[in-house]
C-alpha cells in the first residue's frame, strides 16, 4: 500500500526512523486496529494510533460523554458532554488525520456481537472498564487469533500485557476469572487523570511494534506502573496448560458472557429499594429498628469513611462471604454501595448462603444524595 505525497509529508518523522521507514509506514497504513472503550485508556491510544497513520481504526463504546470523563479522557472536550463517545471520538480522529478510516461501533460488546465487531481488525486494544467485557474480548481474541494489548487502571496504578495467540499466555492465564463487583472500578475508587495517559500510550506503542514488526512485544510479561513512586515493575507469567480458553483442553471454544453476579432466579428474590422507599422504611431519623432492616455498606473502608448512611455497618463485598454471620439472622440486610453494582453482587452472596430476604439500594449512594 504505497504512500501518497501527503502521507510522506505527514509521517516524515516515522520515515526517518530506520526501524519504521516507508515499509513500516505502509504496514501501518494497511493495519486495522480496534480499541475497546473510548475512555481514559482509549483516548490516548486512539489519538496516537490515528496520528501514526493506522489505516483503519475502530472505536467500540456505547456510553455518552460525561463531565466527569473530561479529567482524563482527552479525546473529548466540554462541548461533547452528552454525545455518543464513539461518534465524538470518530469526528475528533477524522479531524486529526483525514488520511485514515475511522469506524464508530456504538455498541456494548457481548458474546453475541464480539466476533462480528473484531472480525474486521487484526489487533485489539482493550481499555474497557468492565471485567466482563475484558473476558469476552480476551476469549474472542484467542479464538479468532487476534493480537490483544490489554491495560487496566486503579487510582495511581496501572497494568498492561500483550497477548499474541500461539506465542504466549492470554489474559485468562494471568487472571483465570474475576468475580464482578469484587474489583472496584475508576468511578468507585477514583483515578489520577494522567495515569491512563501512560498506560494508553504503552498500548499504542505495543500495537505499532506488532504492526511494524520491531522490538520485543510485552508477551508473557506483566508490567505494573506505580505513578506515585514512578516505578515500572515487570513480572513474567506463562501460558497455563489448564487455561479455559488457550490451554491444552479448552472449555471455552466460543465467546460467552460471564455469569452475572446474580442469575435470573436469584435476581427475582432481591428486593430493590429506591432511595425514597428506603427513606420511608427507615423513618425520618434514619433508625432501622422498626423495619427490621440492617444497613450494610459493602464499599471499601476508605469510601465508607468518606460518608455513609447513619447506623450503616461496613462489610466490603469481598469480605462478605466470611462475615455474613455479623448480620443478625432475624434481620433483613439492605446492601448499599456507590452505584448499585457491588450491592447487587452482595445480594447474590447472601442469597446463595441461604439468607431468605435481602434488599439493595437501587442506584446506590449516588441516588441517595441526588
Amino acid at each position: 500500500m504505497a504512500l501518497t505525497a501527503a502521507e510522506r509529508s505527514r509521517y516524515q518523522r516515522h520515515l526517518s526512523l530506520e526501524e519504521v521507514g516507508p515499509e513500516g509506514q505502509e504496514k501501518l497504513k494497511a493495519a486495522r486496529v480496534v480499541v475497546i472503550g473510548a475512555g481514559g485508556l482509549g483516548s490516548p491510544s486512539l489519538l496516537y494510533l490515528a496520528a501514526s497513520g493506522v489505516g483503519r481504526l475502530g472505536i467500540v463504546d456505547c456510553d455518552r460523554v460525561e463531565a466527569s470523563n473530561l479529567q482524563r479522557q482527552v479525546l473529548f472536550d466540554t462541548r461533547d458532554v452528552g454525545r455518543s463517545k464513539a461518534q465524538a471520538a470518530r469526528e475528533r480522529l477524522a479531524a486529526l488525520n483525514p488520511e485514515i478510516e475511522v469506524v464508530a461501533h456504538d455498541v456494548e460488546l457481548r458474546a453475541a456481537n464480539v466476533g462480528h465487531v473484531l472480525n474486521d481488525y487484526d489487533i485489539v486494544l482493550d481499555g474497557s472498564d468492565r471485567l466482563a467485557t475484558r473476558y469476552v474480548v480476551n476469549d474472542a481474541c484467542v479464538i479468532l487469533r487476534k493480537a490483544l494489548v490489554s491495560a487496566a487502571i486503579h487510582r495511581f496504578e496501572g497494568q498492561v500485557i500483550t497477548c499474541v495467540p500461539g506465542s504466549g499466555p492470554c489474559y485468562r492465564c494471568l487472571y483465570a476469572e474475576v468475580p464482578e463487583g469484587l474489583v472496584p472500578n475508576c468511578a468507585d475508587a477514583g483515578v489520577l487523570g494522567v495515569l491512563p495517559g501512560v498506560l494508553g500510550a504503552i498500548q499504542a506503542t505495543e500495537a505499532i511494534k506488532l504492526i511494524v514488526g520491531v522490538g520485543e512485544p510485552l508477551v508473557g510479561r506483566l508490567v505494573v506502573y506505580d505513578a506515585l513512586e514512578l516505578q515500572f515493575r515487570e513480572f513474567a507469567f506463562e501460558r497455563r496448560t489448564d487455561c479455559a480458553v488457550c490451554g491444552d483442553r479448552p472449555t471455552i471454544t466460543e465467546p460467552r458472557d460471564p455469569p452475572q453476579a446474580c442469575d435470573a432466579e436469584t435476581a427475582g428474590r432481591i428486593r430493590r429499594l429506591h432511595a425514597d422507599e428506603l427513606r420511608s422504611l427507615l423513618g425520618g431519623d434514619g433508625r432501622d429498628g422498626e423495619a427490621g432492616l440492617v444497613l450494610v455498606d459493602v464499599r471499601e473502608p476508605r469510601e465508607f469513611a468518606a460518608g455513609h448512611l447513619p447506623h450503616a455497618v461496613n462489610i466490603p463485598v469481598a469480605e462478605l462471604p466470611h462475615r455474613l454471620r455479623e448480620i443478625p439472622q432475624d434481620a433483613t440486610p439492605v446492601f448499599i454501595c456507590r452505584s448499585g453494582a457491588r450491592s447487587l453482587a452482595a445480594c447474590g452472596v447472601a442469597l446463595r448462603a441461604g439468607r431468605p430476604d435481602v434488599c439493595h439500594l437501587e442506584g446506590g449512594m449516588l441516588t441517595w444524595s441526588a
Partner: protein
Amino acid sequence: MNCTVRVASPLRSYTNGSAQVQAEGRTVRDLLADLDRRYPGMRFRMIDEQDRMRPHIRLFVNTTAVDTLGDEVQPGDTLHLICALSGG
C-alpha cells in the same frame, strides 16, 4: 525471616494506604498469615476457604510467579501482591 511485601492498589485499604509493608515467615503461606495478623481480613481477599489463591490475584516473589503457598522465601525477598484491575 523478614520480607518486604508490595501491596496492590486495591488491597491498600487493609494497610492504611501503605504500598509497602513488612512480614515474617519462611514460606509464602507464613507471610500471608503474618500479614493477616497485622492487617485482619487481608488474607481472605487473596486466599479462599480451600487455601487456594483467588483467580484474580497473582503473587510473585521478586519477579518469579508463586506456584504454591508452600514456596519458600529468603530474607530480603519481596513478595508482590498483584490484583486484577478493571478500570479503563
